[in-house]
């Protein structure tokens, strides 16, 4: 079920009271597992078996892996677990992609592999919980953590419904101790949790979905729109994907907090980054840190000389692109970001880039804004590849940029785009300044906080009833 739907609010209003009334940790955890499978089964009950299979396999292998002393045998079990997880992911997500790509190649020689193309439904959340399971197994292999002795706790770690279908991809050392401990939310967690859910819903329903309706229509038939409208569509997509995912992550964090669990913050105002390296420290933090820890560092990181560093960076970003979807456009998107990062690394010459900006006069502010705009333009260019369905669409976009046309609705598009940009920037600036995404907690008077949250919630409820909700963009990954 979508977070931005009434059925989810009804689900939550049933789950929370029952959860709070349950006496022991074990019963709470068991109840949350049932909720997780119900939540997942609401999409498609058949994939609950896949989730259960993945959970059982990794739980057992984790235990065997830790108990085995022989390094070679440990490595074999690690490979088995990763292979099983990647095979499941590869089959459901990439089988048709590789068949189609290979078919295109061998058609040159007059052969055909279209018969291999299968009607495969991608289980929602597969990419997320598979990576989460892999990180657990690797952490056990590296002896960072001991394997979770309780199957119930491990099963909950995998199927914890706030982050089951679209992350954030959590790490076992962060979550398992919380799940094994007292699952009683504090008053602060409940306050912050409610605020995160409401602000997340506001972002998703009133900004993400609103931009999404325009973007989806433009990118479905880009040939119908003028060059200017296409460019506005791309800018609106950059807003949609950020707000949509950060809104979702807020709701996930908020829901987890109401259950007494703290999960990772996934976004930290990435469009206010002054360079591309900072952007990747602020964008989809869960995935980028996963790729850094389990892929980039595993490949050698920056420990094997500058040339190998750039190669490792490119491989990581290409695979990161491919993770998003079975399409060459995602690979190109990942590759572009790899080039950006490699070039930035080259410019830095070993220096560490600044993580955030602090005001130091108007001149430094102007420089910061210029750098942020420059970084945004680079990211925006890459989003074109991310959003386009195929290479023909990219070609059409470039052709329209070269043969520039404006159309009679340019002013309307400017006003609409500026409105969405302003509200996104408002959220980002406040969060950047307060260093919190539950920034309303900084307001001294609880009555003012409650008034603002009530207004946001009322607006969300009205729009949710009036318009059909759009699925989260990241659900398709």
């Amino acid at each position, binding site marked *: 079920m979508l977070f931005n739907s009434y*059925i989810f609010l*009804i689900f939550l209003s049933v789950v929370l009271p029952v959860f709070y009334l349950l006496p022991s940790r074990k019963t709470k955890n068991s109840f949350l597992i049932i909720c997780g499978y119900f939540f997942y089964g609401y999409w498609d009950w058949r994939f609950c078996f896949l989730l259960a299979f993945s959970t059982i396999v990794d739980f057992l292998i984790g235990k065997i892996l830790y108990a085995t002393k022989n390094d070679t045998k440990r490595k074999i079990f690690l490979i088995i677990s990763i292979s099983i997880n990647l095979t499941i992911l590869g089959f459901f997500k990439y089988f048709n992609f590789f068949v189609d790509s290979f078919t295109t190649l061998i058609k040159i020689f007059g052969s055909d592999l279209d018969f291999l193309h299968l009607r495969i439904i991608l289980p929602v959340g597969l990419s997320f919980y598979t990576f989460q399971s892999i990180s657990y197994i690797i952490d056990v292999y590296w002896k960072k953590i001991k394997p979770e002795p309780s199957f119930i706790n491990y099963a909950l770690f995998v199927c914890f419904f706030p982050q089951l279908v679209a992350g954030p991809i959590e790490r076992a050392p962060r979550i398992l101790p919380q799940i094994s401990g007292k699952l009683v939310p504090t008053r602060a967690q409940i306050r912050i949790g409610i605020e995160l859910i409401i602000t997340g819903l506001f972002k998703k329903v009133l900004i993400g979905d609103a931009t999404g309706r325009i973007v989806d229509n*433009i990118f479905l038939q880009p040939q119908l729109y003028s060059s200017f409208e296409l460019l506005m569509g791309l800018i609106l997509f950059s807003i949609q994907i950020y707000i949509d995912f950060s809104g979702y992550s807020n709701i996930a964090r908020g829901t987890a907090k109401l259950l007494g669990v703290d999960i990772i913050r996934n976004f930290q105002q990435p469009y206010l980054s002054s360079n591309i390296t900072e952007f990747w420290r602020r964008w989809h933090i869960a995935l980028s840190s996963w790729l850094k820890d389990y892929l980039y560092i595993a490949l050698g990181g920056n420990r094997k000389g500058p040339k190998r560093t750039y190669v490792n960076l490119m491989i990581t970003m290409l695979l990161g692109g491919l993770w998003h979807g079975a399409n060459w456009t995602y690979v190109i998107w990942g590759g572009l970001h790899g080039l950006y990062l490699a070039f930035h690394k080259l410019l830095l010459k070993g220096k560490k880039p600044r993580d955030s900006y602090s005001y130091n006069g108007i001149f430094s502010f102007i420089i910061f804004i210029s750098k942020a705009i420059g970084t945004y333009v680079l990211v925006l260019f890459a989003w074109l590849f991310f959003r386009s369905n195929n290479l023909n669409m990219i070609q059409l976009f470039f052709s329209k940029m070269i043969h520039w046309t404006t159309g009679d609705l340019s002013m309307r598009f400017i006003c609409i785009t500026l409105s969405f940009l302003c*509200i996104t920037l408002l959220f980002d600036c406040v969060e950047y300044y307060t260093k919190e995404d539950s920034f309303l907690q900084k307001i001294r*008077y609880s009555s003012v906080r409650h*008034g603002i949250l009530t207004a946001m919630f009322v607006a969300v409820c009205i729009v949710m*009833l009036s318009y059909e909700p759009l699925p989260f963009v990241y659900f398709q990954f």
Partner: protein
Amino acid sequence: MVVKSIKYIVFFLISLCCALLFIEIYFQKAEIYPISTVRYDTILGLALYPNKKLVDFEEGFYLGKINAIGYLGPDYPIKKSPEKIRIALLGDSYVQGHQVFDRHHFRTLLEDTMNAIFNNKVEVLNFGRGGFVVHDSYCYYKNFVTTFNPDVILFIIGPNDFDTNMTNVMLPSCELYSDSIKIKYDFNSTKAFKNRLHGEFYRGKSVMLRLITKCKEIKNTGLLFPVLLGKLYFPAASVENKQVAPFKLSEKHRVILRTMGKDPRIVFVLRDMLPQDAINEIKETHAPIIECSGALNKLIQEGIDPYYWKVSRKRGHLNHLGHRVFTEEIVKELYVILNNKSN
């Protein structure tokens, strides 16, 4: 304690109102949903408000504007230039076409195509109105469309245009007097009209209030529980097995078609399969008929639905392809009709 509570309530209400106002401004600037685009006219009833912006995401994506005179499309003045050929489009929401930009609407496609043939002399004016049925279109034709002195009036009809139960208290009504139609303007003095007029003054200016009105409509049409419960909603069998009464062309609509058919400017455009009763009545008027349902149904048989919208996953009004095919069908016959008229 009491002072504290009062202070809390006051601050709560002030911050609530300020936040709602901010959200309202955001809704209007970002065009999340349109504000009211109707005005109240003592003759026309619900008329279009000149220069109001429109946005629609129900099926496709529409961004447009009502022109300075109060209809859709470019601002062609009421007084027609003698050298111009003026074509008026009359009909319901399929003619209004708030699913595609004006540049993709069959109004523009028709105008461009006809201008290529007739040397830029053609003006096409869109008088389509959502929710209109035959009797509403008749009143609009009599009171508004004819004032523009069109050379041709394409009256575009579909099967849903003959619903006699669709009456709008905000519009003039048609009464049958022996074999003629009389338009009545009683709506002006009804309590319902005055209440709506008063309410719309406030509701019409606020996006949030219009959204609340939309929520009420959703509740009244029985769609509330499917929205709330999603997949867990199981409709009652009696709702699914609702029987549809067989079609019977009303006497009022029969007389309206006959009356309109007497106007030499009228061309009936059949956008979909009409009941035989209605087709026979239209044929008896001896007015020119343009049959478009064949081409549109052929597309459906080929697996390309001209009414399906991929983004909203809804089947409703003509999509971009539908508008193009519709234009092609009209052009074929209209060219002959205009040529005959000019001869």
